[in-house]
């Protein structure tokens, strides 16, 4: 039994050693590098299996080099760092806390003498004790410092004490604890969260997403009949509208893409928001980000046909997509839009049509259209369109040629986020506090007409003697006669 006790103690001491911290830090630094050089799944578009030779690929797979930051060795380092931080903090925290909240102890003459010379100032004062005391207690007050307090108050002698930045003693523990919170948040997210994407054609809805990364307990269900990583959302997601805007003077440079996104439960819309790249929609903790968009390669065309005789009455409105045969019943004709162009060499939108004749459907399987004549272009001109004589006996006015897009959404559920944001905030606060604030103690002593002012500082002493000299000068001017 005793042996195990010693063994545990030894292990604990090892874990709590700052040398171990250093080793872990160096290892974390060096082992972070290969992952930035070797292709990573999830980050690079190229498959490592394609890029590298067979032997390296085998080795890399074994060492998990292609998922370097989730590999057993990197995760183990973080786990070891966490244990090290916990052990270090448990060992040292009480002592440091005591130093921060410790009741000030009166400095004896010897303590004053032990201070570095440049931090001790002496002068004489002939003012009486009470007057001096109230003067100095007032003068030492500052919004940054603790209230000046009397450590000693006897007949001919008193000592005033105040301090600043005492919490910087434990600020490094704030940093370390915050790091643990960040790790905890990351673990919660990786177990319960997921990351995925969905492409929704403008105007349509989906109820599944393609998952890239999924925690063990994400609770996602596989979509029946879907791809292997296609999962059910549990509600429907509709892209009511998608718009991409380009900068006028920079062709091809997108200014914004906006999706009007709607969450539908049992067919009833419950949430709706226009999302842009830096502004996601959140529903049930799941966040939907505007990530990309793409052309469906399809156009929606709105046009009118009319008898080509003045006045153009009896217009017939029609709306259809590329490749879809449309009947023009009055004229016993059939058209197919072959292609559409947003801007035909500076002349505006144009659609290329082909007249076709439906084959008599004597044999159902071979009911293919028969091409009639040559394809022809129709332009949409300014001011609502222009007509054109078709090879048939009617005219066409194009009203709208709208390109159809799909919107690319990034979908993420990140339940650990509040935890690691809390940690991040603590990390920042702690870093600033630990590095830019230092614990400073000030002592003013009066004994038989002799004033003595001294200060001590923890950790980063640069330029402190100047601060002390300045303060001493103020007190000196106040009390010297």
């Amino acid at each position, binding site marked *: 039994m005793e042996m195990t006790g010693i063994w545990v103690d030894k292990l604990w001491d090892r874990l709590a050693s*700052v040398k171990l911290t250093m080793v872990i830090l160096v290892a974390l630094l060096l082992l972070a590098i290969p992952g*930035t050089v070797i292709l990573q799944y999830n980050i690079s578009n190229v498959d490592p299996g394609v890029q590298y030779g067979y032997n390296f690929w085998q080795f890399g797979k074994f060492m998990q080099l292609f998922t*370097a930051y989730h590999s057993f060795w990197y995760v183990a380092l973080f786990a070891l760092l966490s244990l090290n931080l916990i052990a270090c903090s448990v060992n040292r925290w009480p002592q440091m806390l005591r130093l921060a909240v410790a009741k000030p102890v009166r400095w004896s003459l010897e303590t004053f003498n032990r201070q570095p010379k440049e931090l001790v100032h002496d002068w004489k004062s002939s003012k009486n004790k009470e007057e001096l005391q109230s003067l100095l207690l007032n003068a030492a007050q500052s919004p940054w410092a603790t209230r000046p307090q009397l450590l000693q108050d006897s007949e001919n002698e008193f000592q005033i004490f105040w301090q600043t930045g005492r919490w910087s003693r434990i600020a490094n523990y704030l940093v370390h604890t915050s790091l643990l919170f960040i790790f905890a948040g990351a673990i919660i997210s990786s177990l319960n969260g997921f990351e995925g994407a969905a492409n929704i054609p403008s105007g349509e809805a989906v109820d599944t997403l393609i998952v890239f990364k999924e925690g063990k307990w994400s609770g996602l269900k596989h979509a029946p009949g879907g791809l292997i990583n296609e999962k059910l959302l549990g509600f429907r997601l509709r892209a009511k509208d998608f718009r991409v805007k380009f900068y006028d003077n920079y062709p091809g*440079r997108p200014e914004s893409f906006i999706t009007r996104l709607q969450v539908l439960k049992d067919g009833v819309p419950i949430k709706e928001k226009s999302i842009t*790249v*830096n502004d996601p929609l959140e529903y049930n903790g799941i966040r939907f980000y505007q990530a990309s968009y793409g052309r469906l390669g399809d156009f929606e065309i709105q046009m009118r046909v009319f008898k080509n005789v003045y006045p153009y009455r009896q217009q017939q409105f029609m709306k259809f997509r590329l490749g879809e045969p449309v009947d023009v019943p009055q004229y016993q004709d059939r058209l197919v839009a072959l292609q559409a162009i947003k801007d035909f060499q500076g002349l505006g939108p144009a659609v290329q049509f082909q007249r076709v004749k439906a084959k008599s459907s004597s044999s159902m399987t071979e009911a293919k259209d028969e091409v009639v004549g040559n394809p022809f272009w129709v332009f949409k001109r300014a001011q609502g369109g222009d007509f054109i004589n078709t090879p048939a006996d009617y005219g066409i006015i194009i009203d709208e040629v709208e390109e159809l897009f799909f919107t690319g959404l990034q979908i993420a559920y990140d339940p650990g986020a509040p935890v690691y944001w809390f940690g991040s905030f603590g990390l920042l606060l702690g*870093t600033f506090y630990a590095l830019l604030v230092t614990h400073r103690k000030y002592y003013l002593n009066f004994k038989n007409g002799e004033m003595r002012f001294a200060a001590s500082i923890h950790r980063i002493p640069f330029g402190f003697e100047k601060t002390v000299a300045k303060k001493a000068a103020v007190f000196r001017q106040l009390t010297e006669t």
Partner: protein
Amino acid sequence: MSNLLDQSIFAMNASSFLYLGACFAFIISISRASSEKITKWARWASYLVWLGFALHTFGLGARWVIGGIGRPPWTNLYESLIAFAWGVVAIQLYAVHKWKLPILGVIASPLVYILMGMGALTPNKLVEPLIPALQSHWIKTHVLFGITSYAGFTIAGCIAFLYLMRRGVSLSKIGAGLSLILVLNLSLAGGNEAFSTGDFYMAKTVERTLSDGRVVYTKDTYQHFEGGPMITRMEKLPYAQIPFWLTWALFLAAAAAFVWTRKKENDAIPDPGESADAESAARKGHDVSKLALRLYAAGLFTFACLFANVTWAKNLSPNLSLASNPYLMVLLVMSFLLAVVYCVIQFRYLPFLKSLPSATQLDEFSYKNILFAFPFQSLLLVTGAVWAYSAWGRSWGWDPKETWALITWFAYLIYLHGRLLFRWNGVVLSIVAIVGFVIVIFAFLGVNLVLSGLHSYGAA
């Protein structure tokens, strides 16, 4: 507004020339025989830096005016280079005046000049509107924190180098390290071509077939004009392989000579310590053998010949572009400037050391820079995570840029723990600070130029 843009680019170019002028002025300053004269010259050189800084500030400000309030002047490669250089100069000037350290420019100015030079060689200098992912308030703070912390670390590295000098660390060891870095830089610049064919290929021409079938040669890959396929051809610089390989071999030989032939009797002198005066530090550190110095100086001469050859080759053919890899070209220029600085210091070692503050103070300045920069590095990481969370759907994705920022953070964590917990001595800490600076430069530039990832807004 394009007029203002032209003025801004002109101001930027003018300021890089002023920084180059300052480099030369600093090199002249350290060649003076007494410490008073060195300080006086360095002070005058610092005024040149001030002048460059004023133009630099105007140039950046003008870009902000053109782009509007929502588009700060640090959104593409050109802008991040000049904004980073601006940060470095700002902290340099603070150090010059607050800490009376004009001599810092000897190391800092060549760095600033190459950053500006890389900027000048970046093809796209337009103030283009932002793509959706960058349209966020975070672009102002996140990138500003990055510039602040990286500039702070850069100056800390420069001061750490001065510390090693002033501390009396063996000049031979510093010289050997520097020579090896020069050999590395030369190898990088020569690249695969140099090692496989033996020739120096740092130039290119672009062959384009026009729509009418004519074939034209141009030096510009980036210019858009009517034309068919474009072939970029690496060109051999005539005779350049001679000075290139001579320089390469001489610096390698110098590195070996620095190590093997240094004066061993200096090892017997006890370490003078941090608070020692310049004389005893110089006595300890001055251990360079004549042979090493001669090899080094010869390397410097052939290095200069390489530049002369390159200039001559450029005049030979108007289609030849040295921008085949502008970053490697400026790397060569910086290597040359730093090599010259070290060579001059050799001859004026004692007055140079005398013109520096005490080692204790240099250590303090370097440390202060890191104390200042580290919290901003933490802010960089956290604001980056927050921004990624709102734009990309994840707060941390191990993208190479993110990872290298974290690697930088680890490096300075090692520095701070080494300092506060282990009380490492100044020499070790200075070496860590210099290694940290190299990591910073890679995190800032190398990642964008060498590795690819989501932060590709910085690509040329």
